[in-house]
């Protein structure tokens, strides 16, 4: 019985680990900036890009109130180009698409620390 309990404790730990990788959410790509249910305005930061540090992979974002925040964009963060304003389909983007002046929404990877991006949506202007 003792062995069985130890075994099930192992089961608990491994099963919990297997469930950590939440976040498939691929349909998120098609949701325009500021409209993500349960995220926009709560666990995401929305504003204009005022600075980009390629080497550190960070962007500085200033919101409508003038508050600025620098957020790291890790390699595994998904980046989408929001072209819904032009009535065009949204695309997968890259760090190079994060350019000063563009509107951006960043969902935090960690809701408490708010330092790293889980996903990024950047508005692409016509012809941009």
């Amino acid at each position, binding site marked *: 019985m003792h062995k069985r309990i130890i075994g099930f404790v192992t089961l608990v730990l491994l099963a919990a680990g*297997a*469930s950590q*990788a*939440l*976040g498939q*959410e691929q*349909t998120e790509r098609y*949701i325009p900036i500021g409209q993500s*249910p349960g995220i926009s305005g709560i666990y995401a930061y929305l504003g204009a890009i005022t600075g980009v540090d390629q080497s550190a992979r960070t962007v500085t974002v200033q919101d409508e109130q003038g508050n600025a925040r620098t957020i790291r964009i890790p390699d595994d963060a998904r980046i989408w180009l929001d072209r819904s304003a032009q009535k065009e389909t949204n695309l*997968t983007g890259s760090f190079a698409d994060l350019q000063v002046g563009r509107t951006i929404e960043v969902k935090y990877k960690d809701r408490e620390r708010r330092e790293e991006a889980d996903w990024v949506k950047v508005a692409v202007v016509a012809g941009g």
Partner: protein
Amino acid sequence: MKRGHFVQLLAVNSALPLIILTLSACPPAPPSPPDPVLEGERLFFNETFAGNGRTCGTCHRAEDNFGLTPAFIAMLPPDDALFVAETNPDLANNFENPTLMRAFGLILENQDGFDDLANNFNMRGIPHTLALRTSVNSAQGPQTGWSGDGAPGDGSLRSFTTGAVIQHFTLTTNRIPGIDFRLPTDDELDAIEAFMLSVGRQEDLTLPLALKGVIASRGQEIFLDNTLGKCNACHANAGANGDPAIFGPTAGNLNFNTGVEDLPDQPADLTGEPNPPDDGQGTPGNGAFNTPPLVEAADTGPFFHNNSVETIEGAVAFYNGDAFNNSPAGQLIAGATGSGINLDATQVVAVAAFLRVVNALENIREAIALLDASPPASSERRTTLLARARAEADDAIFVLRGGGLHPEAVTHLTASRDLIDQVLSRYSASRIREAIEAQERARNELVTTN
């Protein structure tokens, strides 16, 4: 008349013209807000979100246990919105596979992304939406869809609707909001979530039940035995949550890689149709899929995320095979208990009999609730409730008869169904009461209740 009363009456009469004037000067009272559950039900079955014509109810049919089976699909007319890939040229490619949809009830999902629609997709069955109140929450957050990660936004059941609209309701594969569909509003998401949470069982069972049938009783023992069936570890009380005694009090719903993808001779593969391997939760996936509730299993096959097993007996037998016992979950079970799962045929049938009986008990509970709610309802609403009660009676008959179980209960259930048919043709409150009593007699054949 006493004087006091006369004075009061006089006072009221004197004031009456003033009251009438005041009332007529008032703006009309604002309409009371719609019941969120009823509003959610209306949206669930009628709202297309300006898309291709599908609604939530296109795939989650109330008459088919809020899922959709190949048998039900075969009865649908060719212009049903389910078949938009056959009728809308813009959706002819990379949106559905009509062959696999019609043969096996499989729906195309792009859960690993939309950049390579021709190659990056999976074919998945349609999970029922019964008992969601018991099966979504976990210590890791909400678990939605076959791999627990089906919702955009905050990953909640509420947000799941938004993802479903984008994946399944779109007019073209461009998926441009405002053109190919509209996104649900916050109020609509709230209402649809309220409706989904209201459907079916609202709480888990407490096992063991005092079952009367010897085979189902033995099946229940095997189910609960952590050295034999080992089922209860991940399906506590035949639900969708991990056993709190093993996984902790807040574990809730869990994901596991049980090796279903490694099954040989999967039906969809045998057709030769494109059917890429499904990597489960995450992108790239970790091979894990969500634990579904078992109370509702017996009448909601085919089973597993890819509809690969047709019968409940086959689904139980899966856990005896190499695909499960060599899988990460199977190896965990073997490591934890000293052996894999190895049931003989009679034990497999006993566990399945247990699942058939608890399913029938849930059918009966739901049918009685629907019948109870039908007399005070409007005529249209009553017809809806009665039709669902009839479907529940039909399902109970199906699951019991399919296992050769409780023929007396089947007789009572058949009588109840016939009575519901009579009420559907001509309303009678006494017939509804008789239908409920027949359901109760059927239940008494299955279980001893206090």
